């Protein structure tokens, strides 16, 4: 089987590009801890309102100063639908669905996760810039999908 010189050069180049891409991902993963939200925890979606982990929703501050936000997603709203968190503080979001699959995206940031009934979505991020952020449901959940949103207010502390 004959392979032309130019083909060889091209294939080595293509291989190198792929290695560079994967290297960049490995770097971001290892050195900056950039992992997609991959928390593994289950919850019964039919009892989620009374489940101890989701009975109290809203913002709580832990003794170490970190902040936890507990939310439920449902057709076609987030509960609570307005949250206030401090800037420059790690905020851990814990979200579950009371019915179908939803999405949770903080527009203009890397905050993005699926919310799948039966599972707890969890991720942590820090907001540098105070201001008002739009939260959208980015997974189709029924005829009111486009009305499903919430507001995140990041407060002071620059």
């Amino acid at each position, binding site marked *: *089987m*004959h*392979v032309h010189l*130019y*083909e060889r050069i*091209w*294939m080595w180049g*293509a291989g190198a*590009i*792929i290695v560079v*891409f*994967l290297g*960049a*991902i490995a770097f*971001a*993963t290892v050195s900056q801890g*950039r*992992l*997609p939200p*991959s*928390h*593994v*925890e*289950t*919850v019964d*979606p*039919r009892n989620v309102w009374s489940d101890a982990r989701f009975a109290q929703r809203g913002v709580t501050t832990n003794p170490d100063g970190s902040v936890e936000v507990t939310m439920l997603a449902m*057709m076609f709203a987030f509960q609570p639908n307005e949250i206030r968190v401090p800037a420059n503080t790690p905020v851990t979001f814990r979200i579950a669905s009371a*019915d*179908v*699959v939803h*999405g949770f*995206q903080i*527009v*203009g940031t*890397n905050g*993005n996760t*699926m919310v*799948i*009934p*039966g*599972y*707890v*979505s969890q991720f942590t991020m820090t907001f540098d810039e105070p201001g*008002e*952020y*739009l939260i*959208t*449901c*980015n*997974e*189709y*959940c*029924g*005829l*009111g*999908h*486009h*009305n499903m*949103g919430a507001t995140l207010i990041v407060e002071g502390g620059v």
Partner: protein
Amino acid sequence: MIHNRRLATANIGVAVVAFGIATFMALMQALSRASLDLPWRSAKMYYLSVTGHGVLMAIVFTTFFIMGLGIAFTTRALERPLKWPRVAWAGFWIAAVGTAMVAWAILWGKATVLYTFYPPLQAHSAFYIGATLLVVGSWVWGAVIIASYFAWKKDNPGTPVPLAVHGILTTIIVWYLATVGVASEMLFQLIPWSLGLKETVDPLLARMLFWFFGHPLVYFWLIPAYVVWYSVVPREAGGKLFSDPLARMVFALFIILSTPVGFHHQFMDPGISAGWKLAHTVTTFAILFPSFVTAFTVTASLEVAGRMRGARGLFDWIAKLPWNNPMVAAVLLSMILFAVGGFGGAINAAYGMNAVVHNTAWIQGHFHLTVGSAVALTFMGVAYWLVPKLVGRDLELGLLAKWQPYLWFVGMLLFSISNHITGIMGMPRRVYETSYGGSLAATQWEGLTLISAAGGVLLFVSASFFLLSMLGTVLAGPKAEQPTLEFAEPLEGEPTKLVVFDRIWAWVVVAVILVAIAYAYPLADHLAMETFGSPGYKPF
């Protein structure tokens, strides 16, 4: 000659009709997202239309077109009719009945679950059963092609199979591997659940099975386009295929790498560990390689064509290509759009960066460049060239056919670029209204949604040109003897010896092992965990 012409024509006919219906839906959606009011605009119509457009374009149009193309290419290249023509017709009817069931469920508003049909959104059982029948029909088609190949092989021992057939067999193998996932989801979860035999389903397990199918599905669409690029386009452009063995290498790589990649669609899912997501990232990037090689071989073949047409300089071979031949123009423009889409795909697959674009308008911008251009525009080009040969008539309304690919190109650039940008700005995909109660973030993407709508209108005009030309050809094209279907000759002559890439079934074994590694452990892990099912919801 092409055998089983009526069957090939019937398949392509269903594909073109599905494309036509989905085109009207697309126009309405593009205008709706820009908040442009049409008389019949409503959330119910919009989401119904998104479901219809997705299913008709991504599943019905593609599958039937590929079945028709596969029959034409295989019977022509092997110079023999299909081994079991009656079984092949039965397969066509199974798929057609399935399609009718799905269309009924969607158009009557009983299955507004989008083409991804994630439970616990629950459609009418006719939707799931119909979709399963469509897949079963395509399995029958694949089996008939494989049987025809074995019959040929028996008569031609030790001869490499013609490249076009090698590619079609690759398509079928990828499809068989892929559909294991969706068939399991349908048979063990969705069908019994929608019939009331099962109370709940596990939505995450369903998503794992769906994406086991969902990504190799894109290679099921793409490989036939590559078959056209390799085995037809060099000749139509006036040249030769630069390398036959590397094309076979590309097919082998698609067999082994298409399936163990599905978690890159689930980066944002809870319940799947970060380690497995990373493993699927590596295989996802590996599958860029065969597409890079294809870019070289196809471009080199086109350069050969340009030089055989008299080009002398470094780049004038590009201008020498027959840009006024609708088939060649459609393919060339689809390749340019695909190059952009390919790099966007690398961003989607990049583990960390995915969070910025996941489920945003970026995604629809991306896949309209890939399946919506590399595949759909190539197929339209193929139709201009193949349909006249199948029906024995001259292409009608050729002027529309000449303009159509260029309109598609411009429309797609407007549509796709604006959606990539609004996506990065955070606009979700698949929403009826993008204003979010006048939220400040939402006002920033207003002008871009108008550009996207303008692109949608151009795409609609382009699609109409295609449909008019097809309709004209079949109904009113002058009956005339057509030149037969010819494949491109390799620059170094037809291969006479088998190479390692011709050992198709050995590559299938490697593929099965890789799929088992990529999926068996995470699936077993998942099934061992205590999970809670969900009852069905019908919020539409």
